[in-house]
């Protein structure tokens, strides 16, 4: 079997993103490098064949997902609970953690002007943030950071995909009129 076929079969059968090293476990001949090349080849093939799905990069893994143009068709099957959209408090807290990590609860509360313990507990339960260490200060406070699941939830490849503080105004003005783009994949825009 060709590496592309093995990688495709594995991705096809998986419900969660898989890293290249996880995918390489499918066959002794596979290495992370070969898997990466196979993914690239598959992506190009799907693109050329106008498939309804694509391989997307989420966190450090890859997953086959339907393309956004097909959302309206698939949403008709929406009888299974999906992960709900996050509340304003949760998004605010995540925004601060994402840009200031590692960060303690007190610092988050200073920025938000409101308490953050319950929202941090929820985000920890949902594995969107995790304790990444302890601070130096009084009582060695817990420090929080974002998780792989955070990237997956927002369709991000890595944290660098979030705009830098200087880029933010530009990005936001661009958001007003832009079309829906694929998560973690800028290479196929305009297809």
């Amino acid at each position, binding site marked *: 079997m060709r590496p592309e076929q093995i990688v495709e079969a594995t991705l096809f059968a998986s419900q969660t993103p898989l890293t290249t090293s996880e995918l390489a476990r499918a066959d002794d001949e596979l290495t992370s490098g070969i898997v990466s090349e196979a993914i690239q080849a598959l992506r190009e093939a799907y693109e050329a064949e106008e498939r309804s799905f694509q391989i997307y990069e989420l966190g450090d893994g890859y997953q086959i*997902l339907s393309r956004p143009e097909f959302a309206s068709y698939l949403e008709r099957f929406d009888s299974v609970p999906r992960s709900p959209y996050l509340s304003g408090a949760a*998004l605010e807290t995540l*925004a601060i953690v994402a840009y200031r990590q590692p960060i303690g609860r007190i610092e988050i509360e200073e920025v938000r002007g409101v308490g953050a313990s319950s929202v941090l507990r929820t985000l920890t339960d949902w594995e969107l943030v995790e304790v990444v260490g302890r601070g130096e200060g009084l009582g060695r406070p817990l420090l929080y950071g974002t998780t792989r699941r955070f990237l997956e939830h*927002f369709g991000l490849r890595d944290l660098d995909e979030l705009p830098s503080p200087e880029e*933010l105004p530009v990005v936001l003005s661009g958001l007003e009129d832009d079309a829906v783009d694929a*998560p973690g994949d800028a290479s196929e825009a305009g297809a």
Partner: protein
Amino acid sequence: MTLATPTERSTNTPRGRSPLEGVQPFLVELDRFQGPLDLLLHLIRAQDIDIFDIPIARITRQFQLTIAEGLDDMPLERAGEFLEMAASLVRIKAQLLLPRPEKLEWEEDPRAELVRRLLEYEHFQDVVHVLERAEAQRGRHFGKGYVPDRPAPEGMRPELAVELHDFLEAASRIPEPPPPVRVRAPTRSVTVAEKVSLVRRLFEKAKRIAFERLFEPWGTRAHATAAFLAALELARQQVLRIEQSKPFAPIWLFAGGWVAATRGPNDDAPVSDGEPEAGEASP
């Protein structure tokens, strides 16, 4: 919402405040806001106020009026957060009113810290919009398992047919509750030291002791507790080690602590009856 109108304001403020500092009717729902900074930022942005030159008196009044409406229905903690901000606003207002030395430096502006916090908060509101957008985009992609499974064919579902008769029969099989346990006052106290010497005596005869043997003949809680503490103490002293193959399985005490057990081969295997489960003897 009842808010003071400009006419009311002018009648009950005889000290001739600037009209700019007066209260404009301003209707907002407090529930919409994440917290005091969110509300404050809204008041400022919605009125196109220069954030670097906030009319503190006017904003303070608007802030107070807005929170006065919703405060009663608010959890105490959340209300406290709004009140704290209201207090800081009043403090800044007071500092602005105090006579200051002629030489005014920009750094001395009592509003500076508030402005810094508002700008920082606003920055993260922008990030929230970016995240919201990303979340919505991600929500338009679907992975395996999204479309629900087809229901299993009829024959494969076990029939759940229970009639009253079955139910009563099941109920009749529930055993009678046991008779109440009679509680005895201990007639003689037992010490941990006694149990320790009991363990040592037993180890002279066997390499392994069932934990129950240390207290069962007496059948009191005091004995069980003393035996338990004695076992822990001896384990700490490396005289014995405690093993249990799984929860609620019999507990065995083995002569020689963990140190001794890990040092040599597994040669202190139990000699008495009641062989514990395979593999359990090796640490």
